[in-house]
């Protein structure tokens, strides 16, 4: 499954919204449930599913989902990040 679809599924699971669609420009402001708790769930779920570990609050500092996808393309499944 392409990374985009995989990530979209994570978002749908975490935010309990099967209709949720991600674009490169999506940000926390676009998803009502993406509050601080949703953010922690999202962070832990992405780490588990993609085998990455975010540094600090890095996930919140990505400008949008496009930037997050580029990060995951580089680092997913242990390719490059301890």
């Amino acid at each position, binding site marked *: 499954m392409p990374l985009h679809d995989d990530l979209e599924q994570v978002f749908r699971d975490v935010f309990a919204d099967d209709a949720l669609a991600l674009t490169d420009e999506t940000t926390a*402001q676009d998803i*009502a449930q993406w509050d601080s708790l949703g*953010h922690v769930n999202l962070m832990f779920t992405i780490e588990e599913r993609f085998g990455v570990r975010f*540094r600090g609050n890095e996930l919140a500092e990505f400008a949008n989902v496009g930037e997050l996808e580029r990060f995951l393309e580089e680092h997913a499944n242990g390719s490059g990040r301890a």
Partner: protein
Amino acid sequence: MKPPALRVSPTDMELFARASGDVNPLHVSAEYARRTPFGEPVVYGVLGALAACARLRERPGSALESIALEFLGPLSAGATYPVEAQETESTGELHVTDSGQLALKAQLAFARGSQRTLVEGRPEAREAPAAFDLEALDKGLAVSGNWAPSLAHLRQLTQRWELSDRGIDELAAAALAWTSYLVGMELPGERATFWKLDLRIASRGEAPSLPLPYTAEVTRRDERVGLVELAASLGDGLATATISAFVRSDPPRSDLATLAPLLADAPDLTGQVAVVVGGSRGLGAALTQALALRGADVLLVYRDSAAEAARVRGSVNAAAGTIEAVQGDAGDAAWCSDTLRPLVAARGGLDLLVCNASPPIRPLPLDPAGVDRFERFVLESLGLVVAPVSAFLDELDARSGTTLILSSSALTTLPAEWPHYVTAKAALEGLATWAAAAHPRTRFVVVRPPKLLTDQMNSLLGRVGASPVEPVAAEIVRRLGEPRSDSGPELVELGA
């Protein structure tokens, strides 16, 4: 008959505080809660869950075996929230929503078994919460002690919601109350925000006598998000709990040492009289300090935050100007006229009115269930500006003074969960437009600051991209020294 929805009254809050011994200030102190991102006291999560359980069906011969709770959004005492229940023979699931958003989720499992009551004993709980910060909560850190609920108070709650008929016996209700006590008073204590609970009640054993011994240990800490996980046990395994709780960081405070060097280009305000409404915390505190540093005599108006107001007043002892803290509700027109105006008159008039106060902003999606709260928020926001502006228009006209109205860059960024805030700020800008035309002698300045690192924004996501208050306050005061424009209110956009 089952209640149509969940409502926790202020009396229920008091009963639960006494029943559990959990007097964490987030739940019992308006002044404390104002300095957290919640803005106002929050209903105990466990109490909200107990109230929601009144929606469960009756289960004769059943006893609670396990309950998993997720506290996803704050509930307010006195407000009403819809509860949806889905049940099977042996399970129940409850969803409490707030304006369409899930605020509390409970999953319960029941087993056949007799109900257990507790044997009366003297309540045992500490008086003030421990206050671990995140750094102190190393994995392996353990606490232990004895705890006993006040059974009389616990029974008032369980009887009111007929919980024992629904399979939640006295032992289960007490174990739930204990988790609230543990998180709010012991580990992590004062800074805790309870997030998740997984509680199992042992099926064995007779009615235990009080107090009950307990232990709790930190099993995980995530510094990145300020989270700890605990493993805890009550009554030698009578109840076992896995708990996730956030540990709040210190509220940000405007710092004089940071502020002073930024004011080099700011005008000399010696001899000028200023009123800052909402001057005890956040940008208002930094503005109050900046004005005093530049020589103004400032009346700092605050409603709840007495300690913070005193801190701001005490911070500028060596400043050129003065600060006097005045407690009152600036949204009350009579208070503005009867209390605040004489204080201004005693200083000979008014040169600057700063309208910075706002009600606490909680996320509020545009939803039919949230219309009342939307309207209340907008009205209260408006009142905090309309009342002081109307009270002081004559004084400001007389000295060709300035009214500074704090709007927000949210008018351009349009945060998804803040339609009420955007609406309120747009209304304030409308007022400024009208007043600038009707009162040309007074200068009207509308400021749209960027997202600021204030108490309100001191959350995991809130802090991201938030600017410190000092440079923004210094820039606003510097702009006061620039020549005024001739037409309409001046719009100062400081948003990033």
